[in-house]
């Protein structure tokens, strides 16, 4: 998709229209609109750093990036789904569920006939992610086999998964996830609290997830199939693409990413509670949309989504840092999202007006 973006202006370049300096102007505007997420991010950094000298410090940038990581990972998963023309509203709940599953395993272990078993942290994390992936698979099956609209299927799953999270502890919190040496399950704080080379592990994880996602979306047949399904499902079917498999796969990816994000949040907090990540799905979708992912499917980039998550995170933290009240934080965040969608529309219009000239 990245090369699509880069290559798209080619038609205009190939057929230059004389007398039209306006086209050049339009093309410059288009470039600006394409990079709007970056532009917004730069503007935010300039504004906040001029208000507070603490904003543009190394430690604050690292902290904000760490806050971004959780939403970015959620949003990357959701982007896969949106690229196929679907939507996943259940990611916040899946994060909560996997958080509770992992928290329960660490805190009280698994009851089996004959006693209680404790797993190592690595196994717990793996189980947490598998739970998320399975819930995603159920989403995918509902949508492909039972023809439930993605909005409805994942809305239902939003409630089911949240309820399952609450049932898991009967509503309670697992307050201490440190584990004990005797049980061999210490070290859960590594992914959420610790740092490697001065950068939080959570940020490294985000980088790895994003890198893998970029490779998958741009450099694999599966990635092309995702874009094809979202761009024109019927054409994808006719091209022999196993559309249902692609769809199930993206919901599995989304569920696994959501679970990973939930685990990071839980690790950082050192406690698992059933309301973990409530309404985070909206932040994730907002990041994807902000990053230029079209809700109609077929258009978007992982990099854009990550940038979108950065904008939302840097904005929210900046508002807290300079002491803006909660109410205004909501208003500003909403306004930025709406602004982003408006500029997206403007970009589409400009782009089609530029291509029409050459058609």
């Amino acid at each position, binding site marked *: 998709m990245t090369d699509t973006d880069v290559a798209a202006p080619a*038609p205009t370049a190939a057929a230059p229209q004389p007398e039209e300096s306006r086209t050049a102007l339009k093309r410059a505007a288009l470039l600006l609109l394409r990079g709007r997420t970056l532009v917004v991010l730069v503007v935010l950094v300039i504004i906040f750093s001029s208000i507070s000298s603490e904003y543009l410090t190394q430690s604050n940038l690292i902290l904000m990036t760490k806050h971004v990581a959780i939403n970015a990972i959620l949003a990357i998963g959701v982007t896969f789904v949106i690229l196929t023309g679907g939507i996943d509203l259940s990611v916040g709940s899946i994060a909560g569920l996997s958080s509770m599953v992992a928290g329960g395993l660490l805190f009280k272990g698994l009851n089996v006939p004959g006693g209680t078993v404790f797993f190592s942290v690595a196994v717990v994390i793996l189980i947490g992610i598998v739970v998320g992936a399975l819930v995603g698979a159920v989403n995918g099956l509902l949508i492909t086999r039972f023809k439930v609209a993605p909005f409805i299927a994942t809305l239902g799953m939003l409630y089911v998964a949240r309820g399952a999270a609450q049932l898991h502890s009967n509503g309670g919190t697992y307050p201490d996830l440190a584990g004990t040496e005797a049980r061999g399950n210490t070290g859960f704080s590594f992914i959420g609290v610790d740092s490697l080379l001065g950068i939080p592990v959570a940020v490294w994880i985000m980088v790895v997830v994003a890198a893998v996602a970029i490779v998958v979306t741009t*450099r694999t047949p599966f990635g092309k199939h995702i874009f094809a399904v979202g761009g*024109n499902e019927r054409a994808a079917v006719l091209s022999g*693409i196993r559309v249902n498999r692609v769809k199930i796969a993206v919901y599995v990816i989304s569920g696994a990413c959501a679970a990973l994000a939930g685990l990071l949040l839980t690790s950082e907090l050192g406690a698992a509670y059933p309301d973990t990540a409530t309404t985070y799905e909206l932040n994730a979708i907002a990041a994807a949309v902000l990053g230029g992912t079209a809700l109609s499917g077929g258009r978007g980039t992982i990099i854009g989504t990550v940038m979108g998550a950065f904008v939302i995170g840097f904005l929210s933290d900046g508002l807290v840092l300079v002491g803006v009240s909660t109410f205004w934080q909501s208003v500003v965040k909403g306004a930025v999202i709406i602004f982003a969608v408006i500029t997206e529309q403007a970009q589409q219009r400009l782009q089609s007006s530029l291509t029409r000239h050459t058609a």
Partner: protein
Amino acid sequence: MAEILEARHISKNYGGVRALKDVTFTAYRGQVNVLVGENGAGKSTLMKILSGSEQPTSGEIVLEGETVQLGSPRAAQALGIGIIHQELSLFPNLSIAENLFAGRELRKGGRFVDAAGQRRRAREVLERLGQDRLDPDTLVGDLPIGQQQLVEIGRVLLEDVRVLIMDEPTSALSNHEVDVLFEVMGDLRRDDVTVIYISHKLDEFRRIGDWVTVFRDGRLVAHESMSKTDTGWIVRQMVGRDPDSLYVRNSSPVGDVLLEVRGLTVPGTVAVDDVSLSVRAGEVVGIYGLMGAGRTELMETLMGMRRATAGEVFVRGEKEPKSTVQARMAAGLALVPEDRQRDGLVQTMTVRDNILLATIAKLTRGGLLAGPAEQRTARDKVSELAIKIPGLGALVTALSGGNQQKVVLARALLTEPIVLLLDEPTRGVDVGAKSQIAGLMAELAARGFGVLFISSELAEVMAMADRVLVMARGRITAEFTAENVTEEALVTASASESALEASA
């Protein structure tokens, strides 16, 4: 013979493209004025100008001797010029009466919709359209497409229309529905309404037209009273040369049977009913039939997109047990669909990605796409099929219709098929591309492919196919060889079952 509407020296430029070049067109009062021409010849542009939705770059429009400004569709309507577009613009969720008055509801007390009044007027209009048995409260979505077309006409009749422009109104109609439409047009003509009628279907417009005007490449090339013309003359005017020279005839020797179908049956609103056929290596087989005859459904079933309830498909003598697209593709079938925009192209992707879509999984190294191989494969196909593109990275929507069609064809060929299924391969492409595509089909046959294609154009199917099958109501109703096929026989066979429906 009084002129009512005249377009004088009209030119229209879109960016650098000249869509109309100094066109002077006359429509006669109370007559059916037929406009013909290939796609992109400029007839739709002229109609947009006459109905006010586009403004000419130069030239003037004269209505009953007075120069008029048609600044908007509303302005044109106010002067009594109405248009019915090819795509219906109805609300399927509303009733006939509500559709007729959508946007200009009758009022009661200045505020409330006068539903009873609308119903009364709707009944009058339906009566004028010969549809007095239709209840104005019926939902438009529940009507067959032909009656929906009539509702669309009804919308225009509600205004005091003097000139009615119809842009390919019969493209989706059954023969019976076309008959009804023509009766209505006859009535309108008696009511002194002038009809400007755009059509592709030679056999149809010759029945109803009084005057014929031919467009080619943005120019008006001929204008003649219908009675002084014949089909050959019209085609010659349209393409600028003899129709037979347009198409390349396949003349390769015929080999083994590549595709055989026995008793294929698919239920549905448009059904496929007990179809058997075969295609041999080196053979070009055409399927002629009207829209809704089950041709597309047959193709889609062969390609594994629909499930047959009975019947068998053999490729190279082997029975194909699995009816999935993947299985049929692996067996050696490839389909170029009729509706490129809906079934063929992924509009959000580049030319390269569209070409490689079906075979991308083969172009990998270590699980990752091999960029250079992709580029090479796509470039080879582009030059092989002479696809005109601004670049492999350009969005596919930047291409013209003919080149888009070739992109879909390139994708199909990359799957290395042995039988190529082409559903209306020349629909919506210009003359040049049409002739190229015909040439390609012949060439593919010469290379040992089997080719099965659908066409609704008599001239085309007769000129291109070695054998013609006629489909109607889901069945194969006739089969001809290139030697014994005639226009008349094709039309008769294609209507054989529709006629039954008309009398029922």
